[in-house]
């Protein structure tokens, strides 16, 4: 069995050849061979596995850019001196770091070096007969014998017929068999459990498959995020995404053109249990999807239930409110009307957002706002939301006028407002109270700069029924991973390989018939485990018992 030389079953020498001791001169080739042998040894595999486990730990202690980019920014803010040092040694990118990659690449190199020769060897072993029976079976790990005296031995039985019976019996139980004859007698040599080694090889090869598929899938795929407000649509082109992360080998051709409309977003909150009152129970995004030229199809997206469409998986990651606001400028023209997604700040969906009105005349306008789906008052007098559903929606706005700086070309965060160059005209220190609106209400801005309306989107609702007055938005995560199916395939193969390699016993069994000088037969049974085989003892005993029965009958 061509296992690594330091495998417990291995037939190699106890110790690897030491360079310079066993051979006076190794040469480059000798060193290469020595190095390769070390790399593909079991010991190296263990050490690399342990290194891999240790190297993975820091990724759980410090925020990672891949999974928690905001955490990294925060860490930088809190530890301005330490952060750059950690960053230098890639502790915020552990799983793509040089050192982590080095460990797993070495491990997989070792794995390939280990699996390839074993596969070749195993393929050969699958086609060769079981090995010759050892002369002295009694030396083997499991051995038992039984003697049939001349009188006990039926006339038609001799060494040849009993061994033939053993051969047939072993074959029928799935052993591969071969007959041998030596100085002591006739024997059958049998081996079973080749599937154990096959499984082991499939398992290790599947690990390589998973790694390659994950790598390629990441390379050819993409992920993107998009916030869609009720009633609005999203078109699957690169420019339509709020954020878009292509893989290394991504081309625009990977984007299938389609359109998706968020018809309605349903949120259900706990009403029964007082303790959990207002906790979310269920979110559903009702959407309609269109392929080019096709008819619309209605579907739903839920939190644990993504929509597979147009080569994408579309996930529901978050949701919130997008108050619809209309701004008239000082000249009475409508300068702005839109639903603006506000970012939720807490479990009751107190949300913040920014409205920019560059088209307002004579001066540009901007608003920083808070939205409370169910406004309640803190003891300090400040507002807060006390329920995530629309029971008492209130929008408060700080208003600014001046130059929004949009012409400078510097991209701006749509959820934050830099007050530089702006004059606050309502709220804060401006001397004018902050604007406070409920759906349907309008307030004039100071200094004749215009007016703001908090539009209701359910104008016909009964008095006091706010339930659909403010549109909701869904934040969607959109993924394309062409290799996902391959990953799953290799994972399944790996599991099957693992199971057969751990639980199928591989063993050799011998039955030998020795004709005694005074007549009669001694039947010898022996077994040898190849790898873990706790049941060997019982198996040999069972074989002996069945064989003895068939011989005596």
């Amino acid at each position, binding site marked *: 069995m061509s296992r690594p030389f330091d495998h*417990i*079953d291995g037939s190699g020498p106890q110790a690897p050849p030491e360079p310079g001791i066993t051979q006076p001169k190794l040469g480059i080739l000798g060193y290469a061979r020595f190095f390769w042998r070390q790399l593909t040894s079991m010991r190296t595999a263990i050490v690399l596995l342990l290194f891999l*486990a240790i190297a993975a730990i820091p990724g759980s202690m410090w925020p990672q850019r891949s999974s928690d980019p905001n955490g990294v920014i925060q860490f930088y803010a809190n530890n301005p001196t330490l952060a750059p040092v950690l960053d230098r040694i890639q502790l915020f990118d552990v799983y793509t770091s040089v050192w982590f990659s080095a460990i797993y690449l070495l491990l997989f190199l070792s794995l390939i070096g280990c699996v390839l020769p074993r596969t070749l060897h195993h393929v050969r072993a699958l086609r060769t007969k079981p090995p010759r029976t050892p002369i002295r079976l009694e030396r083997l*790990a499991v051995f038992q014998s039984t003697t049939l005296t001349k009188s006990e031995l039926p006339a038609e039985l001799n060494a040849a017929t009993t061994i033939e019976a053993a051969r047939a019996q072993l074959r029928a139980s799935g052993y591969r068999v071969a007959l041998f004859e030596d100085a002591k007698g006739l024997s059958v040599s049998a081996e079973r459990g080749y599937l154990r080694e096959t499984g082991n090889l499939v398992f290790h090869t599947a690990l390589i498959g998973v790694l390659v598929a994950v790598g390629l899938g990441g390379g050819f795929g993409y992920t993107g995020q998009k916030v869609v407000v009720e009633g609005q649509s999203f078109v699957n082109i690169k420019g339509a995404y709020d954020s878009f992360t292509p893989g290394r080998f991504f081309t625009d051709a990977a984007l299938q053109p389609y359109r998706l409309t968020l018809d309605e977003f349903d949120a259900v909150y706990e009403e029964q*249990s007082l303790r959990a009152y207002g906790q979310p129970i269920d979110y559903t995004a009702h959407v309609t999807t269109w392929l080019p030229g096709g008819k619309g199809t209605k579907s739903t997206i839920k939190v*644990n239930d993504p929509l597979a469409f147009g080569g994408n998986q579309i996930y529901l990651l978050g949701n919130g409110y997008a108050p619809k606001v209309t701004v008239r400028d000082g000249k009475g023209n409508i300068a702005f009307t839109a639903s603006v997604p506000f970012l939720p700040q807490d479990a009751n969906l107190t949300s913040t957002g920014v409205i920019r009105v560059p088209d307002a005349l004579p001066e540009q306008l901007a608003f920083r706002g808070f939205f409370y789906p169910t406004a309640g008052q803190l003891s300090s007098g400040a507002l807060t939301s006390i329920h995530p559903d629309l029971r008492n929606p209130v929008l408060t706005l700080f208003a600014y006028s001046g130059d929004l700086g949009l012409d400078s070309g510097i991209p701006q965060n749509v959820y934050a407002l830099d007050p530089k160059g702006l004059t606050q005209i309502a709220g804060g220190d401006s001397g004018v109270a902050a604007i406070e609106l409920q759906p349907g209400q309008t307030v004039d801005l100071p200094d004749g700069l215009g007016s703001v309306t908090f539009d209701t989107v359910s104008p016909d609702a009964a008095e006091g029924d706010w339930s659909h007055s403010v549109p909701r938005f869904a934040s969607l995560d959109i993924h394309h991973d062409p290799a996902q199916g391959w990953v799953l395939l290799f994972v399944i193969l790996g*599991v099957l390989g693992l199971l057969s390699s751990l639980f199928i016993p591989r063993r050799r069994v011998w039955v030998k018939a020795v004709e005694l000088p005074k007549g009669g037969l001694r039947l010898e049974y022996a077994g040898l*485990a190849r790898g873990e085989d706790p049941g*060997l003892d019982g198996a040999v005993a069972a074989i002996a018992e069945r064989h003895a029965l068939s011989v005596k009958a």
Partner: protein
Amino acid sequence: MSETFASYALVAIYSAMAVYVLAFVFFTLDLAQRSAANQKPKGEAKVDVASRATIGVVAGQNATAERGAVGVLERDRIAPSDGRTGGRRMERVAFALTALAWILHVAGALFRGLADGHVPWSNMFEFSLVSSGIVVGVFLFLQFWQDLRFLGTYITGFALVVLGVGTVNFYVPVTPLPPALQSYWLVIHVFVATLGTAFFGVGAGLSIVQLLQTRREANRLAGLRFLGTMPGAEKLENLAYRVIVVGFVFWTFTLIAGSIWAERAWGRYWGWDTKEVWTFIIWVLFAGYIHARATRGWRGTRSAWLALIGFGAVAFNYTIVNLFFKGLHVYSGL
């Protein structure tokens, strides 16, 4: 209704804890008795092979020394060294008490599940409740395969600590499941993780006894005479391996079910989130253990230490990581 069930659950849990305490005491008394009965430490436990019904067995007593041949002495009963058969009375009482406590424990988990209206493993308290229950359950059911009652002190002690700390320190009232947890993958994921943990836990217990036994066999451990009544180090190692390998398979399913759930919930099957990292670390550690068992120079004491490190990582994952590390899996409910 829910409130009533939740209070039944607590009654059952506290009763279970009381009975576990008794079982623990009896298991400990049994250890003391083993020590007393084994005044003169013998080199090797007596092995009872008489029950074998096969002809002419030449059982290879030292066969295990031979390469590749392991676990030859499967299912052998270790005869008590004071010569009495039928097991020790203390141990039998302790085992029966453990079974009784476990039934109460399961009842507690069932009532909690009824109170919740969903499987009771969505916060730290419920998790301690169910995981300690599964550990004891695995210990009880493993008896059909092997007599592992000598681990009773360890298992009942472990269950008491987990259940006690979970109930006293982490108790939370019944709450509905947030949408992210409403997935049958969660049910599978957590259940196999707990099963894996239980097998790793029993394996760790066996490895601890193995390490002690190795020292005793090398005559470096004079005390702890009860070890003389337990299987030899080699046999313990084989038992540990076979238990841990089952745990490893469950852990592999944990990893897979977890990534399928992550794929459904967060849109990626693997993102190196804190809990994912630790599940991975544990898996890799036990892969290392399995390799160690097959490597010259790593079998025996070294692989036993690896098994303990692996289980240490499991314990770390359920305690420190759940409570103090941040990540997406913040479901401890605290």
